[in-house]
């Protein structure tokens, strides 16, 4: 910790990337303009940009080079950011004063076109109080909200080391994590399903004390699997987004959160409500300019005293001849089958009934289409039982660690 700025208690924490092993303070600095979007090749680039901006009080956006198209780069310049790509710096096309400490995040946006959400290191730092010493796995895409959550944890709290994983290391990370001594890991349900499908023995060998899931609806099947695999670990799921901030953290190993949390107001915590089946969040950690009470677009249902977040409202409903099937509900039923490692459900245009329910499935054991049909028929209304089932060899995963289904 010697030489670490007092405002960054984690400056002496160890961070490990593919090309670096040292502390934040040892990273070295980049020569950055006062307001910049840094297109990074890897987590070493990204961490250096963060450390430079944090210690110099710069305005910063971090994004993978692969994510930023020419159009997006132009819109970033139009918004007053210099676009830094290696040694190349494209000046902003609009003049404005930099906002010291401003952190920009890119979200996918409702139209698919990325939009910028404003934060600060403070609003992105969502963990408070003394934390047990841990070495975290950070597999998230550079600059994503979840990535920033791990990064700010590492900067703000002593004893929080981080192993960063690049997108092309997603198949081999357990060995690297074991070698480095990872004790805490955070990922999407798709990330965990893929890891358990590909190499469950290597994952099980990790001495994990904390397992975290987020970024997608978290179902009971994956929570149970991880709880059984890591009986000594705390298994948590988190609801967080660039807009809403980190708003829900559940540590009891169960899907959903207690219904009693709805409407509760408490200083420093998000207030959660439900309106017409949609989750509404008022969070002190929300992005700047975001509605105080944010309509999340996420569908919820209350089952046995738990509020389950099942999926996106816009893409969840499949109209089968006038009957409404829930894609997320069907997916959860499929994923609860003991031989199913992963499933994605969607509607497919069909004559007469408009659309029918179809499923892509990755098996971890023996099952036939007839087996899955029988399983679903016992648990779902007739119209919601998938009529077309396709078996895939691999769990599809995007750089966001999501399946985007």
């Amino acid at each position, binding site marked *: 910790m010697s030489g670490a700025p007092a405002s960054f208690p984690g400056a002496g924490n160890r961070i490990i990337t593919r090309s670096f092993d040292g502390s934040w303070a040892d990273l070295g600095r980049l020569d950055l303009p006062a307001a910049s979007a840094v297109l990074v090749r890897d987590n070493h680039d990204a961490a250096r940009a963060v450390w430079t901006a944090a210690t110099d009080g710069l305005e910063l956006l971090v994004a993978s080079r692969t994510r930023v198209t020419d159009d997006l780069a132009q819109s970033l310049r139009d918004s007053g950011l210099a676009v830094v790509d290696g040694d190349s710096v494209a000046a902003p096309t609009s003049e404005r004063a930099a906002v010291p400490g401003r952190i920009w995040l890119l979200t996918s946006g409702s139209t698919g076109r990325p939009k910028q959400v404003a934060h600060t290191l403070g609003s992105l730092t969502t963990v408070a109080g003394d934390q047990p010493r841990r070495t975290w796995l950070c597999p998230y895409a550079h600059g994503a909200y979840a990535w920033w959550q791990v990064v700010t944890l590492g900067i703000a709290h002593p004893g929080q080391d981080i192993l960063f994983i690049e997108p092309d290391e997603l198949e081999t990370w357990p060995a690297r994590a074991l070698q480095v001594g990872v004790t805490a890991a955070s990922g999407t349900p798709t990330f965990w399903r893929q890891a358990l499908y590909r190499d469950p023995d290597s994952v099980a060998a990790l001495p994990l004390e904390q397992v975290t899931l987020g970024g997608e609806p978290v179902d009971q099947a994956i929570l149970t699997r991880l709880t059984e695999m890591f009986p000594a670990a705390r298994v948590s799921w988190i609801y967080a987004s660039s807009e809403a901030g980190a708003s829900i953290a559940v540590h009891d190993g169960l899907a959903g959160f207690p219904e009693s949390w709805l409407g509760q107001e408490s200083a420093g915590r998000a207030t959660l409500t439900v309106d017409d089946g949609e989750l509404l969040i008022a969070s002190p950690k929300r992005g700047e300019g975001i509605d105080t009470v944010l309509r999340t677009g996420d569908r919820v249902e209350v089952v046995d005293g738990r509020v389950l977040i099942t999926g996106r409202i816009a893409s969840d409903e499949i109209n089968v001849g006038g009957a409404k099937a829930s894609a997320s509900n069907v997916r959860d039923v499929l994923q609860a089958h003991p031989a199913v490692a992963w499933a994605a459900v969607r509607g497919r245009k069909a004559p007469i009934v408009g659309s029918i329910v179809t499923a892509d499935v990755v098996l971890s054991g023996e099952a036939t289409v007839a087996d899955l049909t029988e399983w679903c028929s016992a648990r779902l209304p007739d119209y919601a039982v998938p009529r*077309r089932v396709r078996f895939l060899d691999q769990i599809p995963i995007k750089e966001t660690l999501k399946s985007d289904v």
Partner: protein
Amino acid sequence: MTALSRDAIRTMMAEVLQAQGKAMPVDDGANLEQIGFRSLDFSELALRVEDEIGEELNFDAPELRQIATISDVLDFLEQLQAA
């Protein structure tokens, strides 16, 4: 596009029924309502045909008419492939 034969469509229809725990009668004059072949089953059969021939069927092409028997279903899907 390679059109499916009437026999191939018939086999697929039997598979759709079988998946629902129902049997395909030998008589193509059998009434759909009586054998429990519903609109959802018809939709599934149409998608099976689409997947097999690799093309989307154009349901606007043929004249709409009553489909009451197995034979009607087979006629209709044969006609759609030719449309």
